[in-house]
């Protein structure tokens, strides 16, 4: 009781500026279900291996961007325009029912030009001129592959390591594994962006940032561009900050009496949570307000940055969150599912993300944050080399392709300026150095100092992992 009271006083006295990390509070935050907390939760708070990154910014291209039009050039295919993709390449692998019934599988070479960029000579499509300027920061992984062939299972798989809903998301695993690094912001933040291609885009789901069977406090908190930036963050109309302060002081005194009477330590936690909530109410709107960003930074992200909810605005917000040590920031942008009209829609989507992605990397670099921030860019699968629907010289569509696709990594722990892995001449199968989603996730955790085999949570009598019983850290990607 005395300890709790001291703690309570301390929080009252230190509830001001951003960035104060109070170990005591972190300790408090971990104490739910007092006395019953799984000991693994405590152990997991310490990194397993020396961390290279403190946090992750994950730019999620929902729908599945076309690797063959962006990062994995196959100029040899130009000569084979409209030729049948050889059966020997497809090897009877399963297709979605959208193209399984097609009579032909005509090769659709990319109509976009590729060039080499930077000292590393990375091949990047003309659709991404800004990103090309930071080519030397990137590890371009061309041989990612996944188990799922349709969106919902594939995105669930990438995010949770399982195609079936119910497992914790990557960000919540990181929150569970590393704990919070700040005392006024969520550990795992989720930003959803507007997009330019067809609005009839793949759905998302709260499960993608949910916790499955992990404690709920590890859930991603969606920061919103309309209304209050965090759900229920704003005081109701007619409640001033001073009045809220009065109320919380009174509430704390009453709870304090109850703590003494009941002897229940969770009451002390509750007092602390209300104080944390109060600080969040100040801290988060400050972060969402870009008024203190200099002109040249805003310009770096491009004109969209002024539109709340744009991908550019979310990238800048991501950097600001990173500055305040939010552990896992995931920016979603939908609209990458280009079964038809791919050249038009892909260009629109690239325009949404190109400048902002490059700006984010550059901005992190100039703030000295890139070394300790792992940036990930990609979608749940890639797209087929063969055309879905009608193929013309200028237009084509592509179906889902789980067998090889490209993801980008940059920053903390990643070897910059490399292109990793090789696909076959058709861009259909992996020729060299496959990277399964479980490998990718193991590598992401590794950069954060977490061993994917040891980051476990006991549920239903079993120790669950993000990578199930699979996954290898891809050492060659590490710096």
């Amino acid at each position: 009781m005395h300890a709790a009271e001291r703690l309570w006083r301390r929080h009252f006295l230190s509830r001001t500026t951003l960035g104060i990390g109070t170990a005591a509070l972190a300790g408090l935050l971990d104490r739910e279900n007092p006395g019953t907390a799984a000991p693994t939760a405590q152990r997991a708070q310490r990194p397993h291996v020396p961390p290279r990154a403190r946090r992750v910014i994950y730019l999620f291209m929902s729908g599945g961007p076309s690797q063959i039009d962006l990062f994995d050039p196959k100029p040899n295919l130009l000569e084979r325009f409209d030729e049948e993709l050889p059966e020997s390449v497809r090897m009877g692998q399963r297709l979605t029912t959208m193209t399984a019934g097609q009579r032909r599988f005509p090769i659709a070479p990319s109509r976009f030009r590729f060039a080499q960029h930077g000292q590393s000579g990375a091949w990047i499509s003309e659709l991404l001129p800004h990103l090309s300027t930071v080519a030397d920061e990137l590890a371009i992984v061309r041989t990612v592959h996944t188990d799922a062939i349709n969106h919902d299972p594939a995105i669930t798989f990438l995010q949770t390591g399982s195609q079936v809903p119910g497992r914790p998301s990557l960000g919540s695993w990181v929150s569970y594994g590393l704990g919070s690094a700040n005392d006024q912001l969520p550990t795992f933040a989720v930003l959803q962006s507007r997009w330019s291609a067809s609005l009839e885009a793949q759905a998302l789901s709260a499960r993608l940032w949910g916790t499955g069977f992990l404690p709920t406090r590890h859930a991603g908190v969606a920061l919103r561009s309309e209304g209050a930036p965090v759900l229920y963050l704003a005081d109701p109309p007619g409640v001033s900050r001073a009045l809220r302060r009065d109320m919380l002081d009174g509430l704390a005194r009453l709870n304090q009496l109850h703590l003494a009477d009941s002897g229940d330590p969770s009451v002390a936690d509750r007092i602390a949570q209300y104080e944390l909530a109060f600080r969040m109410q100040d801290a988060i709107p400050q972060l969402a307000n870009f008024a203190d960003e200099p002109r040249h930074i805003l310009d770096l992200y491009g004109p969209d940055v002024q539109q709340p909810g744009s991908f550019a605005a979310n990238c800048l917000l991501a950097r600001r969150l990173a500055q305040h040590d939010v552990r896992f920031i995931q920016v979603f942008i939908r609209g990458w599912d280009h079964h038809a009209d791919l050249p038009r829609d892909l260009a629109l989507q690239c325009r949404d993300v190109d400048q902002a992605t490059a700006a984010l990397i550059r901005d992190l670099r100039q703030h000295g944050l890139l070394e300790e921030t792992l940036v990930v860019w990609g979608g749940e699968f890639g797209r087929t080399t063969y055309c879905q629907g009608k193929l013309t010289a200028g237009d084509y569509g592509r179906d889902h392709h789980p067998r090889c696709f490209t993801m980008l990594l940059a920053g903390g722990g990643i070897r910059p300026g490399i292109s990793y892995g090789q696909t076959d001449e058709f861009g259909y199968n992996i020729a060299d150095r496959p990277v399964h989603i479980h490998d990718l996730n193991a590598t992401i955790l590794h950069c954060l100092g977490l061993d994917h085999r040891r980051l476990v949570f006991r549920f239903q009598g079993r120790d669950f992992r993000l990578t199930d019983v699979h996954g290898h850290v891809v050492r060659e990607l590490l710096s």
Partner: protein
Amino acid sequence: MHADLARRCNNTVRVLTAVWLAALPVCQDAAAADAAVHWAFRAPRAPRLPRVQARDWPRNAIDYFVLARLEVEGLRPSSPADRATLARRAAITLTGLPPSPAQLRAFLADPAPDAYERLVDRLLESPAYGEHAARYWLDAARYGDTHGLQMDNMRSIWPYRDWVIQALNDNLPFDRFTVWQLAGDLLPGATAAQRVATGFQRCNVSTNENGAIPAEFRARYAIDRVSTMGTVWLGLTTGCAACHDHKYDPLSQTEFYRLVAFYNSVAEKGLNEDALAPPPAIKVPTRLQEAKHRRLQSLLATASEETGAKRDVLRQLRRLEAAFPWTMVMRDLSRPRDTHVLLGGRYDRPGRQVEPGVPAVLPPLPPEAPRNRLALARWLVDPAHPLTARVTVNRIWQQHFGTGLVRTSEDFGTRSQPPSHPALLDFLATAFLHCGWDLKAMHRAVVTSATFRQSSRCTPRLRERDPANRLLARGPRFRLDAEVIRDVALAWSGLLVGELGGPSVRPYQPAGLWEAVSYPSSSTAHYRRDRGRALYRRSLYTFWKRTAPPPALQLLDAPTRETCVVRRLRSNTPTAALVLLNDVQFVEAARGMARRTRRQGGSTQDQVRFAFLLVTARDPTAAELEILLDLLDRYRQAYRRDPTAAAQLLDVGDLDSDGVRDDVIAAAWTMLASTLLNLAETIHQH
């Protein structure tokens, strides 16, 4: 009915106690013989009632087991909770609602020695009991109002939810409750209710994603149904064996697919076609519709053909029938599908073919039984089954104490923590069988025990010895579940609408949440909240979109309802604090509570006492009263300085401000009510 139930429950408990005092034949030798078998796989045996020293403490058999353990540990039970706390505790644990001030007064004024038992009987007989008990069951059933994957269109299966409420209120014995849900369609001459009950197995998430392969998803649904059955009845994690032999529990992959074979012949397409009620589905009238239907039919018999009255009644009948809601049910194909072991759990890698069957570690199916879901369901509730009764009574215990006797209520397997009181668990399991799977009798036995009636106060010594209260030296204490927190607030505000059942409702929710995740063409792309009474229904009627579940409930640890959950975690987060402080629902509830408080009249002190009593079921101490009066004064001063702010606060929510003459005072009381709604004591069971 009260008397009847009370008699039945009393009989049960008396019989049980007598039986155990006299000791059923307990075969110690046999128990020792199969000690090599994991405890949960041995059929529970009626244990002898243990000897205790403090023989005046036990009120029923449960207490002997708890006390015996405490005496071994050198601990003493806590003193009983005061009566008002007990009344609150019982009402919340049995109905998910607080006692009304009148109920509380009546109970406190009742000098009869069995006043508490009669209160418990009244609570068990109130329709709110079924609603509250249903909410736990719906978590297990993974009930939702949308299909859950990809398009996440709306689904019509709420008649199943209403069936659960009704069945629990009618106290349908748990064996029948089980059989109807797992195989109601296979019962000879299945009634509509028995078919509606099979909705349990249609609550799984389903997809209609463009490009998805039906066979893949049919396999997935069957696996989901087996996993759910495994968690709910067997308390086992069967799902692991979908891909490989279970690593810890005696369940081989082949055995898993034998279970899958029971579920592999559902007459469903695999893709849900974004339909409201993908087949198999039936139309069932609500109670009101049923009554109207009967009336029209009798009218039809007497209506004259000549005046056109007959035609008119027929038209009405047809219109009424067309309005019957759909609900998804189970039906099997006339020719069962072949079932194969799926290598690595993959639908496109079939291994050897298997026939329906049950795991070898559990009792066999009767040889003559057909190999179908009905046989499986009856097997689950066979008195010789070691798991069903244990797993079920453990969940009842968990509901009332916050933690089960087996803490991992979803897992009784070899990796589970052993029960804190093994003999008590077996006592309850055998008692459950003995009383004919009578759920209300079991609830009554638990909440009328001396164990449950203890004060929940935790002394420093107890906190050190037993922080998680596994030894039960004190009463239950835990944060209320999300739905209960919202429902009690609605009750205190006087806004709660106590209607039973019907289509799900859409209360307040921040804008843009559905839009942010949905396909624009989904039938749940846009959230349009309800107006009027629908805003104030109990939370189990809140529309459940699985890809964007009700946000306030989520922040208070409600599951997503995508998979079966029988144990919720309880977190303590700043975002949950923000819900209680700022959600329109809770601010409006504070307004309602303020209005209700002021209508009580009396002095300011009296009114503060009333409001405090409402949320805590006790009088404030002098120190508390002082703090509250001081707060009220601060609020009043603040709003006097800024009357516009007062008007703004009073504008939150749809509740009209009838009778409010003084905004400043009303706003100050609203803030005080909000303060009370945020007290730790308010949102805890204790």
